[in-house]
């Protein structure tokens, strides 16, 4: 096989892997904080993509311009989800918690289908398309500008998240609540506010991912389903609640997905089967995932 083709696959895999990592880190933040899995995560992604779509089609905003608003809206959605639903079922049985977010996801998907139809949409992204003609060549490898921008923004988001969690007072408080809620409250930390913040941040991450994904991926009501599935295994692979774990696992999943069809010469139609097989293989050896929490 051609070395250039392999290099191209590795580069593409890493780029999409950064997006997977960004989607997953939102999930892992929330889980690490309160051991609740947001089963509506994929629908949060879908809503962010539609936000980019409507920003363009209704107001004519470039997706890169509407991006801050999309991230802000998703932050708000995360906080509202916590305040309206999650805070009421914190002490409910686990199944109730699962079905609450699962139900929210189904509801949002149904809503999207009802109001916006099941059609596949796409967003023009003139700003990114205009940058160096929409593509960059690095040696023999050619990369799409939207994909590269997505990976770059995801990297910046990870950096910001790391600095926030590890260096800021609020970030330390988040970690304290994640480890021992009761003791954290003895320090004057309002754990309820930290939970709301965690949901806001988690949703903002997936919001950023959706806003950039919209520039190179179709938008439809169930677009979140596959991405959420990938996010669940990415989180499990990286270690539930681990931010660096989400980054490493996201890149790994992206690589496996794109490189393996190239390397072994099977149809890309089987790429998810390979990803899930890879996940199973890793998890059998290391059930706790690659990293510990936060």
């Amino acid at each position, binding site marked *: 096989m051609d070395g250039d083709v392999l290099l191209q696959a590795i580069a593409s895999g890493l780029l999409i892997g950064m997006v997977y990592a960004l989607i997953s880190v939102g999930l892992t933040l929330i889980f690490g904080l309160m051991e609740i899995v947001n089963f509506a995560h994929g629908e949060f992604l879908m809503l962010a993509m539609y936000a980019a779509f409507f920003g363009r089609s209704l107001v004519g905003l470039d997706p890169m311009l509407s991006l801050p608003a999309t991230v802000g809206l998703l932050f708000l959605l995360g906080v509202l989800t916590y305040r309206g639903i999650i805070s009421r079922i914190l002490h409910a049985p686990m199944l109730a918690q699962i079905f609450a977010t699962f139900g929210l996801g189904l509801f949002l998907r149904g809503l999207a289908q009802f109001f916006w139809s099941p059609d596949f949409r796409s967003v023009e992204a003139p700003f990114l398309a205009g940058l160096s003609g929409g593509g960059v060549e690095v040696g023999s490898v050619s990369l799409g500008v939207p994909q590269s921008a997505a990976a770059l923004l995801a990297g910046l988001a990870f950096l910001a998240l790391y600095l926030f969690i590890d260096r800021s007072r609020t970030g330390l408080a988040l970690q304290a609540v994640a480890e021992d809620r009761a003791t954290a409250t*003895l*320090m*004057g930390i309002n754990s309820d506010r930290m939970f709301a913040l965690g949901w806001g941040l988690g949703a903002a991450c997936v919001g950023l991912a959706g806003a950039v994904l919209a520039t190179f991926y179709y938008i439809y009501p169930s677009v979140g389903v596959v991405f959420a599935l990938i996010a669940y295994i990415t989180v499990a692979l990286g270690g539930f609640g681990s931010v660096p774990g989400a980054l490493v696992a996201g890149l790994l999943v992206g690589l496996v997905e794109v490189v393996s069809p190239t390397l072994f010469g099977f149809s890309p139609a089987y790429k998810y089967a390979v990803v899930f097989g890879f996940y199973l293989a890793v998890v059998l050896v290391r059930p706790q995932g690659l990293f510990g929490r936060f």
Partner: protein
Amino acid sequence: MLLQVRHLSAAYAGVPALHDVSLDVGEGQIVALIGANGAGKTTTLRTISGLLRPERGEIAFRGQRLAGQPAHRIAELGIAHVPEGRRLFSRLTVRQNLLVGAHSPRARAGEDAAMERVLTMFPRLRERADQRAGTLSGGEQQMVAIARGLMLGPALLMLDEPSLGIAPKLVDEIFTTIRAIAREGTTILLVEQNVRESLELADHAYVLQTGSTIADGTGAEILASDLVRRAYLGI
């Protein structure tokens, strides 16, 4: 009176743990709360700091009612509770644990001074400042727990069994530190299994039995009482 507790009762999921606890803690005092395992000492502290809601009774701190207020607001009022078993944030460093201790707005203005104060009080923590708290010895962890409590700049410091599971050599050090903290003006409510040492230290002491305060007096009085001599000192 800095803290007044009157006829307090509390329960865990309907199972009563405290029946009738009344105690006073005066400004600047060291008050000891002693009692057998399971008597309700920890539950008393947890109820004062708001981790547990009282079923009945009154708690007043500087004249303000505490019963029913959330724990984070009670901390904000100036009560630091150093819990049994230390409960450090094990994945955070020593310094980060101390910073978390100063999270509350009341603590922020004095944060740097408080940090310097506790690192001077526990020089060993200065050496270990960037080590993860979970990797420290039991004695060092207790120092972090006390220091983290002091970071709040509390008017009242509640210590739950600070000498539990600590090397005997360090126990003396901990008691010396408690005395020093009190001398610097912080009021202390001390729960201890080391009955003799804590009664020697205490200005006033309460004896707790199956969820009720059954006796009180100066540390020396309680130490000399038949009740305590028989039950705890085996004399």
